[in-house]
């Protein structure tokens, strides 16, 4: 798995790719830390997590997403998950992630 960041005015786009499982727990820690650091240093109003290149994902990474979302909301910014595939959308539905996150097809 991999992720990269793009700052565009007050938008932070996080492009994630690959297969996200509990095996990549260190990468999850890094993602939470780097988003929090970027939020501290920049006046970010929107964080968009782009899932178009994520093939599959397990519950560990749902936890990572929730931690990122909390950091974003602490800064009163908007959190959006974009373009998850149908399998990952189904996973989001299973745990009712849309209760707290906007998910855009």
């Amino acid at each position: 798995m991999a992720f990269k960041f793009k700052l565009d005015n007050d938008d932070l786009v996080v492009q994630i790719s690959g297969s996200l499982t509990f095996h990549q727990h260190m990468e999850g820690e890094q993602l939470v830390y780097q988003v929090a650091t970027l939020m501290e240093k920049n006046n970010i109003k929107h964080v968009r997590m782009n899932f178009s290149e994520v093939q599959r994902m397990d519950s560990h990474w749902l936890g990572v997403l929730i931690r990122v979302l909390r950091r974003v909301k602490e800064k009163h910014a908007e959190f959006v998950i974009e373009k998850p595939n149908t399998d990952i959308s189904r996973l989001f539905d299973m745990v009712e992630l849309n209760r707290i996150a906007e998910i855009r097809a």
Partner: protein
Amino acid sequence: MQLLEPTIFGNPSPESVERIKNAFPHPNSAYLTIMDNTALRDPITLDQITKQFPAGLLREFDLFLMLAECLANAVGYNNIKTLGIHARQRGKMLLVSVFHEPHIAESVDPVIRNAHDGWLPDFEKDPPNGLGFPILFRLAYQITISSDRAKLQLWIRLKSTFNP
């Protein structure tokens, strides 16, 4: 009776392999794999099992998610030395048994009870983990622990029973 030869990952002890093989004396076994703790934590193991698992029994993503959650639970809740995964068809269901050595800790029981009752965390304030069993209960028709606490048993509807 001829027992199904397992796919081995890592170096589980021969005694553990025999114990797990003998725990599944079923003539209609579809799959059996046995792994040690190191292999359990290796992402290649999960990839290989999803590729080797008999095709067409379960939806591909359901298979991946079930395996990932079972392996993660074994890492998280139990100090696992050896893990076995066995599957066999029972009518319109696939019975997937996850054999734990040492056996399943009793600390898992309240987590399973809560998940069975439909519990989901409050994402605003609860710890951002503990979603494994809630997801497994949404994939499986039923989940039980064997009386000797060796096996977590998941009853999952076969792919062929879903509408296209």
